[in-house]
């Protein structure tokens, strides 16, 4: 284990990897600042660049980029009252009032410091957890993994607000798309309609770029946005005061970090859940809850810590079980496959130094990102005022070039466009794009585990104790909102009678 740590640190501090990390952090911070372009879009845009790189360099690039997206997302929430990332929305509630009161510097100082330590400390939790989960991982066979994969896809449907059914449909559509092409076991052609480029299936790159990149741009232009953000409040003093605020509220910060980390470990529960839960608990436990919403610094510290804390947990689940915590981790799963690494229990045995490198990479990227943010927050926030006239063609050009570079097939232009339209429709009509991408990323894995389980244990393999427990918990979580509603209605009726 110690040897693995040594290798991980040596890999991380190789000059080329440090350089890649620095570039990725800068790109990630810019992406976090610009509302509308999420970490998912950018990771999708960068997938073509992963081809042909060494595993550690390619994955450090993606992990570092994604690790800091949430750090800068809070800056636009504070200065522009517009979240750079959807999970930074909770920061707006108190961050923007602080900026209006002339405390923008203090709010940014608190947000960035809280984010930075929120990104670093969970890495220590994750590293400590690895020896503990190893025996469990090795005890998991095909049926348990099949149940876990299914649970991951179903959990993702919870993200579809108020429409679990639509979330499950989206996940299943992803599974269905993943089977297009030759079936590796039987050689049967499935859903390829005699079109030769479809014989090998659909590549994740045009699919992801269509669903997240092109559809997002369509949506921004169609809704008539010319500028993403309109105003800029750039008063920037008292940063150090904000840094000290995090120390003053260290227990709140620690609670939020732990909650964020736990939420990150559970597949399918998004960052928004973590940030709002932490905002709520910060208000509940505050001595001055009435100040929340008017510029309380605790309202900035709690969601920012949780937002970054979830990443280490999410990456650990992705690497250890091969089950991504969300859409970005599903894309990351594909990146792992592109560089020849298969996440799952085997990775933690065969590729432990790489797993450690990536976890430590999150911590280092957070430090670099925080320093850059503290030094240049107001200038960075100006990036959010980029005009759509330039953003739309720029994203389209990079997407198209990336698709060809990665797949060498012009056919994939059409695939990306088709998924761009599908993604737009899904976004508009309440379906879940993250669930689709998760279903797609896990489709082949789920099919392999299922077929092997059927052959080894028969068609009722899910009725073994561990798979049954996993599925029971999943169904309980899915049914929870309906159950509570039914119980409330029952109580109302009893009270009325």
């Amino acid at each position, binding site marked *: 284990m110690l040897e693995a740590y040594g290798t991980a640190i040596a890999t991380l501090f190789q000059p080329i990897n440090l350089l890649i990390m620095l570039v990725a952090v800068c790109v990630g911070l810019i992406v976090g600042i610009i509302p509308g372009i999420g970490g998912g879009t950018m990771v999708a845009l960068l997938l073509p*660049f992963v081809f*042909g790189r060494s595993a550690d360099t390619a994955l450090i690039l993606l992990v570092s980029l994604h690790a800091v997206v949430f750090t800068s997302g809070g800056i636009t929430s504070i200065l522009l009252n517009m979240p750079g990332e959807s999970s930074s929305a909770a920061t707006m509630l108190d961050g923007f009032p602080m900026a209006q009161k002339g405390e923008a510097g203090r709010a940014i100082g608190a947000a960035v410091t809280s984010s930075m330590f929120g990104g670093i400390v969970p890495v220590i939790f994750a590293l400590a957890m690895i020896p503990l989960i190893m025996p469990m991982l090795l005890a998991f066979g095909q049926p348990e993994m099949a149940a876990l994969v299914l649970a991951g896809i179903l959990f993702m449907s919870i993200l579809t607000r108020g429409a679990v*059914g*639509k979330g*499950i*449909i989206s996940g*299943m*559509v992803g*599974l*269905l798309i993943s*089977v297009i092409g030759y*079936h590796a*076991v*039987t050689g*049967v052609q*499935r*859903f390829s309609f005699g079109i030769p480029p479809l014989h090998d299936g659909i590549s994740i790159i045009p699919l992801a770029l269509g669903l997240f990149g*092109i559809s997002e741009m*369509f949506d921004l*232009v*169609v*809704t*008539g946005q010319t500028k993403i953000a309109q105003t800029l409040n750039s008063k920037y003093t008292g940063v150090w005061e904000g840094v000290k605020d995090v120390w003053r509220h260290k227990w709140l910060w620690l609670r939020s970090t732990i909650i964020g980390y736990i939420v990150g470990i559970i597949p399918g529960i998004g960052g928004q859940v973590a940030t709002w839960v932490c905002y709520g608990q910060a208000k509940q436990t505050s001595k001055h809850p009435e100040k929340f919403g008017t510029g309380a610094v605790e309202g900035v510290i709690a969601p920012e810590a949780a937002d970054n804390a979830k990443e280490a947990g999410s990456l650990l689940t992705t690497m250890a079980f091969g089950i991504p915590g969300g859409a970005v981790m599903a894309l990351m799963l594909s990146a792992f496959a592109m560089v020849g690494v298969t996440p799952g229990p085997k990775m933690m045995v065969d590729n432990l130094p790489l797993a450690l490198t990536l976890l430590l990479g999150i911590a280092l990227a957070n430090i670099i990102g925080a320093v850059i943010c503290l030094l240049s927050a107001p200038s960075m926030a100006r990036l959010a005022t980029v005009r759509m*006239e*330039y953003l*739309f*063609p*720029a994203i*389209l*050009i*990079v997407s*198209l*070039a990336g698709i*060809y*570079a990665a797949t*060498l097939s*012009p056919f994939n*232009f*059409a695939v990306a*466009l088709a998924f*761009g*339209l599908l993604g*737009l*429709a*899904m976004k*508009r*009509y*309440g*379906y879940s794009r993250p669930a689709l991408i998760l279903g797609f990323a896990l*489709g082949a894995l*789920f*099919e392999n585990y*299922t*077929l092997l389980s*059927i052959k080894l244990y028969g068609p009722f393999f899910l009725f073994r104790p561990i798979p049954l427990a996993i599925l029971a918990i999943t169904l309980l979580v899915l049914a929870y909102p309906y159950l509570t509603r039914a119980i409330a209605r029952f109580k109302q009726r009893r009270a009325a009678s």
Partner: protein
Amino acid sequence: MKTPNSLIADVFFLLLGLFGIISSLTFRFWESMVLPLAASTVIFVLALAEVVKNLRRRRSVAAADTDGTSEALVDRTELKKLAVLFTWTVGFFLATYVFGYYIAIPLFAFAYVKWTGKGWLAALIFAVVSLAFVYGVFELGLKTPLFKGIIFGAR
């Protein structure tokens, strides 16, 4: 204002589920049939539930609608904008396929920015920067030659 209703998407997924079930049943081995059949069945059943739920809601909303503000299937203004955007995107795709990246990129970048009402200089600078960025990253940085287009001898 009319709000979009997901009926069109629900029906699309219903048909997709139905198509998946019918197609899956034609696959020769059970191993190749299990996953697509199971996924298609779930899609079909849940999409059917969504369609029924939607139709019921539409009926109740229409009954209560006295001033014509009920839910709309599509927003016509947005649909028009999408059609224009889609045309630009398809145009760019076709230009790339025919002329290759290094002609299509500056052409599209210049034409689009000019079309949005920007000046000649801004459009020209954007076109040059776009071309330089893509050439620098892909050809020089990644050593990946991009598509040359069917006219100029596609790779």
